[in-house]
């Protein structure tokens, strides 16, 4: 049965059940992923991590959540009270909403009703996710602004600048997927990956998406908004109790969100690994959920690994990387992909395709060598020392060591 036929005949109560299911999955995933992250990152630092509350410390984040909720809820005097309250709600709602179009499973039997574990299927599904993610930025901006204090404002500005600039790279990396699948609907994109996953055929897009999703979620090494040494806590400095918990929840749901989008767009969604397709029929189709979750967990582990390994980037380096490397690179890649796509649609002879590919490679090499020689020339001119000596006295340039040797 087609996706339209499956989802279109859903009665209202099934939709409600699915909505509830998405909510529960997101919240439980958050609790488990906080625990998993802390345990894994602890192992990477030769520690144990939380292991006291419940079996293996599994209930640690639940206990933390309860503790947070029971804390005093402060609203600063200078804060804009209404916006201050609304901001975390916007943030968290946006995260949950993006899950509406993510297919979590293939055809399953939900309380005697044949359906897909997907709330709805929009023809512009992925665009909808991007739009919702942008709405989520409002939560950050408003939180920073409404706190009525300097550090949250700076943190909020940083976060929003970061999220917006990496959203551009993210959007561009998705264009290649749209070109190749011919659709923006998540289910159609999954169907288009029947033979080859897009993470193989569109590898550069996948890499760009993977990088920008880390930037988009404000996670290490791109967690500039939470640079404690510079900004205290970032945009949520003034938040406490449940409102802070909502931001926390939003952050982790966001991670799960971008990971599931990556799974859907590049890793074949809920489909099994090639060669294991027979597992998709296990448990009446419910086993596809396991495949989906396994892929999401894999992304999450990469998130944790990045956090455990890389130091935080400097703000200017980060912005430079986003605007001067990721975006131009994706633009060039889109050009190449669209050219090749049009050629294959018009059944251009193989020789021409090869010729164009070779031409592109040569062009890239030429550009690269030009840049290298330019760099060398600049380095040479630096070496000669064309720094003019000013007429006024200046301190000696620090070319020599001036450390004291004996005491």
């Amino acid at each position, binding site marked *: 049965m087609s996706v339209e036929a499956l989802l279109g005949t859903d009665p209202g109560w099934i939709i409600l059940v699915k909505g509830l299911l998405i909510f529960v999955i997101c919240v439980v995933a958050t609790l488990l992923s906080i625990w998993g992250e802390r345990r*894994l990152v602890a*192992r*990477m*630092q*030769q*520690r*144990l991590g939380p292991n006291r509350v419940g079996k293996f410390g599994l209930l640690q984040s639940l206990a933390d959540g309860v503790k947070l909720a029971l804390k005093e809820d402060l609203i600063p005097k200078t804060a804009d009270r209404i916006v201050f309250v609304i901001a975390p709600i916007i943030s968290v709602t946006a995260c949950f909403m993006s899950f509406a179009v993510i297919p979590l499973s293939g055809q399953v039997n939900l309380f005697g009703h044949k359906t897909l574990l997907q709330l709805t299927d929009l023809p512009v599904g992925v665009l909808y996710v991007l739009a919702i993610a942008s709405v989520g930025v409002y939560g950050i901006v408003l939180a920073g602004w409404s706190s009525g204090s300097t550090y949250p404002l700076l943190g909020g500005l940083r976060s929003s600048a970061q999220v917006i600039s990496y959203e551009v790279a993210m959007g561009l990396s998705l264009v290649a997927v749209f070109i190749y699948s011919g659709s923006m609907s998540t289910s159609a994109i999954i169907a288009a990956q029947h033979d080859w996953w897009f993470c193989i055929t569109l590898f550069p897009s996948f890499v760009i998406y993977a990088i920008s999703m880390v930037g988009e979620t404000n996670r290490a090494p791109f967690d500039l908004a939470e640079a404690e040494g510079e900004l205290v806590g970032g945009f949520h400095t003034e938040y406490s109790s449940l409102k802070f918990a909502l931001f926390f929840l939003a952050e982790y749901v966001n991670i799960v969100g971008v990971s599931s989008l990556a799974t859907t767009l590049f890793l074949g969604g809920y489909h099994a690994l090639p060669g294991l397709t027979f597992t998709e029929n296990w448990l009446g189709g419910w086993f596809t959920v396991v495949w989906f979750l396994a892929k999401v967990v894999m992304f999450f582990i990469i998130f944790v*690994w990045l956090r*455990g*390994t*890389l130091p935080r980037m400097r703000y200017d380096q980060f912005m430079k990387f986003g605007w001067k490397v990721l975006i131009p690179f994706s633009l060039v890649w889109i050009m190449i992909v669209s050219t090749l796509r049009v050629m294959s649609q018009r059944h251009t002879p193989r020789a021409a395709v090869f010729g164009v590919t070779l031409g592109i490679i040569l062009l890239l090499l030429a550009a690269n060598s030009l840049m290298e020689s330019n760099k060398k020339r600049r380095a040479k001119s630096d070496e000669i020392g064309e720094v003019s000596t000013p007429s006024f006295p200046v301190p000696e340039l*620090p*070319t*020599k*060591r001036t*450390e004291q*040797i*004996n005491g």
Partner: protein
Amino acid sequence: MVENPLTPHSKDLGLVAAEAANAPIAEQVPASFFKQLLGFWVTFITIFKKVNTVEYPEVKEPTAERFHGRHQLNRYEDGLEKCIGCELCAWACPADAILVEGANNTEEERFSPGERYGKVYQINYLRCVFCGLCIEACPTRALTMTNEYELADDSRGKLIFEKEDLLAPLRQGMLQPPHPMAPGTDHLDYYRGTITGSDSAKSAEHVHGATDA
């Protein structure tokens, strides 16, 4: 290991180091991209290494041999207290954590050999900094430190340790003071350590029994 050129050697009068110090600073070149990726391998392989954590309340590792823990007021082998109530510990204490009040021993009520004993002995563990100056000050080795470090409680009062909290437990052959010194000995014998537990305890028992009767 590369020798640090800035470390002065005794023979060359620091000339080599001076020369090295005057060399121009080498330009810092970032490691190659793939070399930088080695960091991921480091964190990955650490996952499988043995964890360093000591799960404290369940697992207790012994302290260093000379760890400065809770104090103890020692006894002679026959159970008489070593403390003579001289207050030197209290005077040595930089944190003013110790309070001592001495009193006279009498022939009927003897707690320590010699003239005086510590009647009141308190250490305030909210003040104590575990520096051990009191131990250095003690002329009779009455005050020493144990390795016990679990000194947490929920009130200020509970953290002021009284004499009975600090006194060493009675071991085999020791008698609970007050009791007289071993017969035919004086405080100098105690001081020299010629009193042995079992004999003197027996004789003390004997004496005790005699006085009781």
